[in-house]
């Protein structure tokens, strides 16, 4: 099936047409047509390379009540994504070639977007013994990103060995930076709000100390470090410093940390409980500035589905995490584009190009030019909508944006020339 996209503004530029043929971008230019091709009217829409998420919890295997590969990748496609990295903290943990191949195969069967399993760094994400990283790298899933996300690889020796070992196959260790002793029982950012609310504080230093250590370790062994969900102004400073040294350090920020701050905890509604916690308004400003100047390489959703009962509880009992695939682009528009911090080329860079490069994906995050795989997202930035999770493709409803008005709408998503979303609906 050939598709002609008419009048799209590539990266927000002038309107043009794209011809998608045989899974590739075949032609770009005005007045394109092809016999028998499906025509998609994209007047006024922004065309972006299909988005790539470095940090997605698909929950399968183990917690299929919260999300499955099928439902999570449907949500991803609706959000404009053509590739996601499925985090390893499933049950069983994705710490063997068998589990990562299962997740990879489920993704292929679902077909809504590419699924790249993340391998656990340590067996059972227990932080004690390296998982068989090489076996996962050599498996059909070709794992390149390794993470114990949800847990910090806190042991400095294990972290050093992991960083060294993955050099053999150009892997990267994605660290969940959380010093465990400083965060025992922690509930929310430690500061004015935690003092008032009587919730155990989660200090910024617990994140920053691990990031600083890991930057130094990565420099020492000459390996690649990726920092998951950076949440504090101090973390941005440390990463900026590490990059200035020329070290191979990359970082991500979540949409929610770009938009929300810890004042949301006021009413003790655990829909705002997340790891790392929402920080202060000053941290939010620093994260936006860090993403704008490239210190933070990319936006990653940390899409973390939970069943209703995990959130309809007391704050301390509630699960940590928020879903984010279906609202990521609107939140980034609100926080970064409409504020003038990032243009659409910048959005493409932070949400497709750089995450694909960090994950060493070859067919994703490439420019919308002739010869690229036809991974395309069409986005209408001109509309506004009130967030209602009832219409989400995700199995879970734990979005912090309920009732919030956000800009924009993903109109269509194409995965290697095949339509996965059209007119905002899954195909």
């Amino acid at each position, binding site marked *: 099936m050939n598709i002609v996209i008419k009048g799209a503004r590539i990266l927000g530029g002038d309107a043009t047409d794209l011809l998608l043929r045989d899974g590739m971008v075949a032609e770009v230019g005005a007045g394109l047509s092809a016999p028998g091709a499906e025509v998609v009217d994209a007047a006024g829409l922004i065309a972006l390379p299909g988005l790539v998420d470095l940090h997605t919890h698909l929950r399968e295997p183990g917690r299929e009540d919260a999300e499955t590969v099928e439902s999570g990748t449907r949500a991803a496609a609706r959000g404009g994504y053509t590739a996601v990295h499925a985090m390893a903290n499933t049950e069983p943990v994705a710490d063997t070639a068998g589990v990562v191949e299962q997740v990879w195969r489920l993704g292929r069967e679902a077909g809504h977007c590419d699924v790249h399993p993340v391998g656990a760094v340590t067996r059972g994400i227990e932080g004690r013994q390296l998982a068989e990283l090489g076996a996962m790298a050599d498996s059909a899933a070709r794992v390149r990103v390794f993470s114990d996300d949800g847990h910090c690889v806190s042991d400095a020796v294990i972290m050093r060995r992991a960083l060294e070992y993955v050099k053999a196959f150009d892997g990267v260790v994605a660290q969940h930076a959380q010093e465990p002793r400083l965060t025992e029982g922690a*509930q929310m950012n*430690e*500061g*004015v709000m*935690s*003092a*008032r*609310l*009587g*919730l*155990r*504080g989660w*200090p910024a230093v617990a994140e920053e100390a691990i990031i600083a250590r890991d930057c130094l370790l990565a420099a020492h062994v000459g390996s690649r470090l990726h920092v998951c969900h950076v949440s504090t102004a101090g973390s941005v400073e440390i990463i900026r410093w590490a990059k200035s040294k020329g070290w191979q350090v990359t970082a991500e920020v979540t949409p929610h940390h770009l938009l929300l701050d810890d004042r949301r905890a006021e*009413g*003790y*509604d655990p829909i705002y409980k997340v790891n790392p916690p929402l920080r202060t308004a000053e941290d939010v400003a620093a994260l936006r500035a860090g993403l704008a100047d490239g210190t933070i390489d990319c936006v990653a959703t940390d899409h973390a589905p939970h069943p209703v*009962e995990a959130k*309809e*509880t*007391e*704050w*301390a*009992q509630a699960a940590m995490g928020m879903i984010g695939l279906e609202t990521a682009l609107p939140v980034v528009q609100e926080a970064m584009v409409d504020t003038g911090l990032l243009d659409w080329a910048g959005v493409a860079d932070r949400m497709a190009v750089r995450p694909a490069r960090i994950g060493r994906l070859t067919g994703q995050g490439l420019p919308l030019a002739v010869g690229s795989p036809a991974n395309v997202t069409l986005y209408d930035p001109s509309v506004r909508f009130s967030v209602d999770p009832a219409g989400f493709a995700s199995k879970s409803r734990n979005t912090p944006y309920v009732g919030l008005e956000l800009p924009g709408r993903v109109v269509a998503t194409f995965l290697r020339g095949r339509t996965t979303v059209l007119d905002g609906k899954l195909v």
Partner: protein
Amino acid sequence: MKRHLISAADLTRDDALLVLDTAEELAQVADRSIKKLPTLRGRTVVNLFFEDSTRTRISFEAAAKRLSADVINFSAKGSSVSKGESLKDTALTLEAMGADGVVIRHNASGAPHRLAGWVRGSVVNAGDGTHEHPTQALLDAFTMRRRLGDLSGRKVTIVGDVLHSRVARSNVLLLATLGAEVTVVAPPTLLPVAMGDWPCEVSYDLDAVLPKSDAIMMLRVQQERMNAAYFPTVREYSRRYGLDAPRMAQLPEHAIVMHPGPMNRGVEIAAEVADSPRSTIVEQVANGVSVRMAVLYLLLGGSESAIGTPGAGE
């Protein structure tokens, strides 16, 4: 007044004075031979206690019963909660039983906020985690007012584990509302790192604050703090932050000594201080019932006067 009493910050100065004045009226009932008023007849008050606290539960129970309310005691132990029932399902159960008021004690900060979203009745916070305990602050203010008069400009010192103390949080807020000048004293490890917006002074030096205190409130040192590096040893804590007889002698003549109980005698307070005439500790317990009667009456009562027609008292 608001429909719920969850934080001391829910009370305006007028609200707080109304509670204290009403409690003063209701305290007269305790001196009668028949200690019962018909005010809340036909109303149901549920005491929902997820944490063991016999003294607070009994205080609320006595308060509700003296106002003729029907009281249902629901404690987590041995109930469906211990079988894994969620707070929400417990709330829906209470709702189905038609509770007009729910008094909740819970080990999770914010549990009363959540409960208030799930029930129609009034929610009274009887202590939530390390957050607040507003009726304790009200009974403390009531006790101080009886001993010291108007609290405007009075200097109140709160000593101990401010970081984890719901009593301290509620007292700081309420006393500031009532115009008192509050100083909290603690080792730095037992203070929140960010107290910028707290309406109080902060000191690490108890001896410096004693001579200018009209009331001093000693907080309980919880057992679990003793083993978590908040201070080197119990003895060192007691030497630096405990109230013993020599320290009590540094207080002004009229100053009172308070403690919300239960006490660790010999740790934060010496036995001779606890048992001295300056100590209001037993009064605080008695005043607790009057203050809780006032709160229940004001939240649940109709437009009737608390103790019958004004001036028609016995």
